């Protein structure tokens, strides 16, 4: 195979599924059973009746593997639609994180200053801790966590990526 065929790329894939028991296990089992990567995975119901859920999965592989992943997802019985947002054009990717920083004195001031620069919100505070909430691309959250580490980063909880195409085009 050519060199281009072996190049890896990341893919953010949106999957609309019937919201039924076991559907998430099917998707995750597909990835583990066939040896595909999951960099992040999020899921929640998205329609008014709660019958349809949207799974956003971030994965990586060669073009051939990513095409396989999409074809394998698409043939699962409860899957309505599979969309490769990375391939299909401009799209937004966001992640939400809750970040706990523990410290006293000057460290607290520095933490707040950095949080302000990153537009992280304080959602909980004690005399020795903050919980920041921030949304953004994964890299922004990574960068914020890296800065907080020497200051007193204690705990991180992240949602994983959610994504949507830009413009009027919808995925239904």
């Amino acid at each position: 195979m050519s060199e281009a065929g072996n190049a890896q790329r990341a893919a953010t894939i949106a999957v609309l599924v019937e919201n039924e028991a076991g559907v998430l296990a099917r998707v995750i089992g597909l990835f583990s059973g066939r040896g595909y990567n999951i960099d992040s995975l999020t899921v929640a119901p998205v329609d008014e009746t709660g019958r349809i859920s949207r799974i956003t999965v971030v994965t990586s592989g060669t073009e051939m593997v990513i095409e396989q992943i999409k074809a394998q997802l698409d043939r699962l019985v409860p899957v309505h639609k599979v969309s490769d947002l990375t391939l299909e054009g401009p799209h937004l990717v966001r992640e939400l994180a809750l970040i706990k920083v523990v410290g006293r004195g000057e460290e607290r001031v520095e933490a707040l200053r950095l949080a302000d620069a990153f537009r992280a919100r304080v959602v909980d505070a004690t005399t020795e801790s903050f919980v920041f909430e921030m949304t953004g691309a994964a890299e922004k959250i990574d960068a914020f966590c890296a800065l907080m580490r020497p200051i007193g980063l204690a705990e991180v909880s992240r949602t994983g990526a959610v994504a949507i195409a830009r413009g009027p085009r919808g995925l239904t």
Partner: protein
Amino acid sequence: MSAAMKPASTEAALTMSGAEVVLRALKDNGVEVIFGYPGGAVLPIYDAIFQQNAIRHILVRHEQAAVHAAEGYARSTGKVGCVLVTSGPGATNAVTGLVDALLDSIPIVCLTGQVPTHLIGNDAFQEADTTGITRPATKHNYLVKKSEDLARVVHEAFYVAKSGRPGPVVIDLPKDILINKAPYTDAPKTEHRSYRPQTEPDAEQIHKAVALLKAAKKPVIYSGGGVINAGPEASRLLNDFVHMTGFPVTNTLMGLGAFPAEDPLFLGMLGMHGTYEANLAMHGCDVMLNIGARFDDRVTGRLNAFSPDSKKIHADIDPSSINKNVPVDVPIVGDAGRVLAALIAAWKADGEAQDKPALAAWWRQIDEWRAKDCLRYRQEGKIIKPQHAVKRLYEITKELGRETFITTEVGQHQMWAAQYFGFQKPNRWMTSGGLGTMGYGLPSAMGVQIAHPDALVIDIAGEASILMNIQEMGTLAQYRLPVKVFILNNEYMGMVRQWQELLHGGRYSESYSAALPDFVKLAESFHAKGIRVTDAADLDAGIREMLAHPGPVIADIAVAKDENCFPMIPSGAAHNEMILGPDQEGGVAGVTDEGKVLV
């Protein structure tokens, strides 16, 4: 909703138990036979079976055999096979059969009992997480937790099992759901919410394919189980297309019978133990048309050396089969029969002429390869060559002219059956291709015989494989199924022994079939006839005696112990590196460690 507000039809429907609803739904989906084994969790269904006559139940001796029997039934009829097993061990025993059906794309609906809903998750007696265990073993599975879902789920299971690329579907049925009253609803007339496989091929892709095929100088058609699954009409269309084009055609193990073995345009089976001419045609072709096959590793050999100079057209009903192992130039998603019909129409409509002189030259090349006579063997003396045993079985059954179905176990005998038994029609050949399940052949033959009571059904077996589901001799006796078990007995797990000889220095680690039973006495103890043949001079008489007997028979044919199955593409080798036989120089000395890690 209060009881008074309920519509009258629902009220009337609530006279049936869940078990009765299940049986009614099976009947409405065309089920005539169900293969199963009772147990605590499915007693309500067995009680309902007792009180009706529409569906016949065949009691197997092990749940794995129930699934294989249903596979044999499905593959020989084109219908959905149906299985009923209990919770826990009943379901786990069925798993091998389910995976077998998954890999070979066989439509099966398997009902499993489950502990009552309020006990699920409590580690109750005979509880297993059946939907969890069978999720990667099935095309789809269901756990029914509400009585009102019951009928819909059964209807949907049949739709999923048989549509698109067929496969096994499990319905897990908690006992309370089976006992409680449940409404019956007819199969929905509307499309499935999310599962709508594409069957009609894209016209543009068909035109691209025809353009490539018309211009081909060295074409080959490679067809697989998808053509069989698409029904007998697809095989007829394949025949038409091959004769219209004059192209050489080869079948995969799963595809045998889709094209008549005795037709001069047939190159035989391809792949690891395929013919020299089929594999070299695949290697040397300039245009390859794959219909309903999946570029399986048994077929391709070393991927980076697979058919290096060809444009590839791949028609498959499952888009995930396309570009999975081998990148193709013209992908076509659709049912094999519809694709063939479209190809035929487009071929006729296309004004371009074929390159007939190039095709004639290509056939001359193929005939040179054919002249190697790669399946030749020497039958000399008393010791029976296994190839000879299969060949004589084929010739004698052909002479008898009865409708004949062949099943196999897994190993050398399976490959010899594929090489030496010529199949003229589809649905006559049942073998475990994808999973390679030893113990498949006998129960599968039972299922075939149930579907075709007057036909001749033969399980070509090895002495090791047959012991994996030998208990089904009891089922043969109970239902008077005249299945013939034709054992090529070389006292070894022959394919394991062959690999140990060729790749592991002749160290025959644990591959000798020690302490074998006396198969004649074994047959007799199961109320069947036993025959043993040890001398080549008695082979024909033994085969005739087996075929003439009206009941089940085990024919134990003592064959050469150290015979290897050739031709062979050693693991990690390419099609043009196949070895023809023991006399060939070099043999498999060149197999690398990279090749050795492959199975």
